[in-house]
């Protein structure tokens, strides 16, 4: 087969147009010919580049204000990405009163290409106004002022930095740090050899080891090697580096390096930070439980899943809202698995496959509403993903979700002359981005009949005026999925979900969101 014939088959393959005979021919050629395989990748990479261009340029299009009278060309009734959004956008043609107001630049947006990640913290207090240093945060080079507590930062090359407050240090690059003051412990795996730690009076180059460095004003800087080998030298001097091996320690005194006894207890280790983090987590869980109980008892609480006190085998989840109310219907689990929530021991439910969802029923009508969820997004979001989708499309029905661009979105069904309501929509700007993955966050949206407010981790991120059809309804609904669609599931772990019949104030939202989430799966 010549190059042109093969190109024709590859083009058909990429368009999904191969017939059986052509498929056999293409497969046979690819198996026997290295040149054909190279041609496959040349063509496929270009096709993948086009697909990426398509996705990004489509993203830019839909990120434009939705008030344009007609957004897109054609509609399609199948399941794919574009149409999920087109269908939504088309149902939102009447979108009066949309306004965006970004009150803070989302930290997540800034840090998608960092050099390390904040892996664990224990009682960490940072000097205010510094870099975002919550657990799970990807960090870029920058300076960190830890006032007290412990923090472990893990570089992408596998190096681990354990800082004990007070400490003032800088991450200079993927393979270099600077200690202005404080105690830092480093573990450098073989693939990261050469990792360098500088300080005002001492420079350390790792040759495969675990070591600690301590710098404080008034005393000489010290290096203690727990395992392996490091090379130390005085900055600015041309003396050969001084090797320091397992069980040895040195300090820099008056431009010279001298041996001192090693102090194994001078540096906190990973066991210590884990122990302290667990203790902190237990305290946080207890205070969250008490705050959650109070909210369940709020007279306007309509629905509150805290996922606590449930047997592992149960397929219904108790609705803790306002137990005196006879309308407190439980939620039914469809497909989801039980998992762990924000803290060890906290129960949660995991939505993963396209069938997973929680079925709920929130009867009655409201004049105002608060929707609150604590969740961890477990995978990149593609297309609109549903937090709450009612079965009803009657005026007043509320649709809550995350748009293709990672914007928090509330839709309120308004009367229309067709079967599909006009949706009054208020979006935030993109806040659920790839760097939020694996991190516990809280999302809240309130609507007082006039204004919609969106919150992330207790902070107001957007607000906009919206019309109300009078009363708001949820009724039968799904959490984390949407019955009308194949792939609208929100790939997330949810450990709290709440609906109240009033708009909580910013202070109330902040107070409930302050239960500090931890990172990771």
């Amino acid at each position, binding site marked *: 087969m010549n190059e042109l014939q093969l190109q024709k088959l590859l*083009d058909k393959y990429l368009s999904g147009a191969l017939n059986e005979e052509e498929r056999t021919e293409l*497969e046979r050629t690819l198996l026997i010919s290295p040149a054909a395989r190279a041609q496959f990748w040349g063509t496929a990479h270009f096709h993948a*580049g*086009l*697909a*990426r*261009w398509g996705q990004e340029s489509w993203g830019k299009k839909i990120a434009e204000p939705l008030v344009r009278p007609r957004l897109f060309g054609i509609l399609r009734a199948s399941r794919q990405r574009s149409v999920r959004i087109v269908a939504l956008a088309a149902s939102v043609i009447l979108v009066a009163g949309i306004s965006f107001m970004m009150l803070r630049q989302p930290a997540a947006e800034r840090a998608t290409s960092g050099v390390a990640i904040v*892996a664990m913290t224990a009682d960490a207090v940072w000097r205010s106004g510094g870099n975002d240093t919550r657990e799970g945060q990807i960090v870029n080079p920058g300076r960190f002022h830890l006032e007290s507590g412990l923090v472990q930062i893990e570089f992408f090359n596998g190096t681990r930095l354990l800082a004990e407050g007070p400490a003032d240090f800088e991450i200079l690059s993927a393979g270099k740090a600077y200690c202005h003051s404080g105690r830092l412990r480093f573990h450098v795996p073989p693939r990261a050899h050469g990792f360098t730690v500088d300080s005002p009076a001492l420079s350390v180059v790792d040759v495969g080891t675990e070591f600690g460095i301590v710098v404080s004003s008034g005393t000489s800087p010290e290096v203690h090697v727990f395992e392996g080998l490091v090379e130390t030298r005085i900055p600015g001097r041309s003396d050969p580096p001084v090797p320091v091996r397992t069980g040895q320690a040195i300090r820099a005194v008056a431009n010279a390096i001298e041996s001192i006894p090693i102090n194994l207890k001078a540096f906190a280790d990973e066991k210590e930070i884990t122990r302290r983090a667990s203790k902190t987590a237990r305290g946080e869980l207890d205070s969250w439980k008490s705050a959650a109980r109070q909210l369940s008892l709020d007279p306007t609480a309509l629905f509150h899943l805290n996922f606590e006190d449930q047997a592992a085998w149960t397929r219904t989840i108790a609705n803790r809202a306002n137990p005196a109310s006879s309308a407190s219907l439980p939620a039914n689990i469809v497909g989801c698995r039980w998992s762990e929530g924000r803290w060890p021991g906290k129960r949660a439910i995991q939505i993963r496959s396209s069938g997973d969802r929680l079925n709920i029923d929130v009867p009655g009508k409201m004049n105002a509403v608060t929707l609150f969820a604590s969740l961890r997004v477990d995978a990149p979001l593609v297309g609109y993903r549903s937090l709450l989708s009612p079965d009803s499309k009657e005026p007043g029905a509320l649709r809550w979700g995350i748009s293709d661009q990672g914007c928090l979105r509330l839709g309120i069904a308004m009367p229309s002359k067709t079967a599909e309501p006009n949706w009054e929509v208020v979006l935030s700007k993109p806040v659920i981005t790839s760097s939020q993955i694996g991190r516990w966050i809280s999302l809240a949206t309130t609507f007082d009949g006039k204004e919609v407010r969106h919150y992330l981790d207790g902070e107001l991120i957007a607000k906009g005026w919206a019309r109300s059809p009078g009363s708001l309804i949820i009724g039968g609904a799904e959490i984390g999925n949407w019955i009308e669609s194949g792939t609208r599931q929100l790939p997330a772990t949810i450990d709290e979900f709440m609906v109240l019949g009033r708009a909580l104030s910013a202070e109330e939202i902040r107070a409930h969101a302050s239960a500090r989430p931890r990172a990771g*799966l």
Partner: protein
Amino acid sequence: MEPENATDEAPNSPTTAVDRTAWVQSLFIQHSSRIRGYITALTPSLGFVDDVFQETFLTVSAKAGSYDVERDFLPWACGIARFKVMEAGRRAGRAWRPLSPDVIEALCACEPETAPEIEDGLLGHLEKCVKKLAPQSGKIIDMFYQQSHKPAEIAKHLGWTVASVYVALSRARTMLKQCVETRMQVERGSR
């Protein structure tokens, strides 16, 4: 993804299963453009790429504990992506079929490196080259690559035969490739 037991971790790995998962996820995000490109090449139906990509991420997260920090991340993640493509192909039934496992294996043994900066450059050139296409070709590229319409749907919308959509798509791709290559050559020459 149930949390794993931290005490089972090897001494040289990140401290706990929780840390390692977060770390492996951050590696995935770093390399997401390459992994997505890889999945796109092996999934001959663009509408399914998102789902395979998401499934791959979830499996990579779940298997973070078995990732050996001494190994390169990309081949490991692409190995998982490959299985996810085949799994999705089995589920898709008649909707689309991936190439046979033997062929995918042979292809993956020789996938060349594509430097990220070339990919980013490619996107900039594509933007300009698509604008130069004849209106109908541009529309077909938009519908196929931006809106993930199948050729049959494009044909119905334009009132064409499906075969003529295939031909038009193929021609548009060829013209775009030539345009991008020319622009890249000019760019290299001017440096």
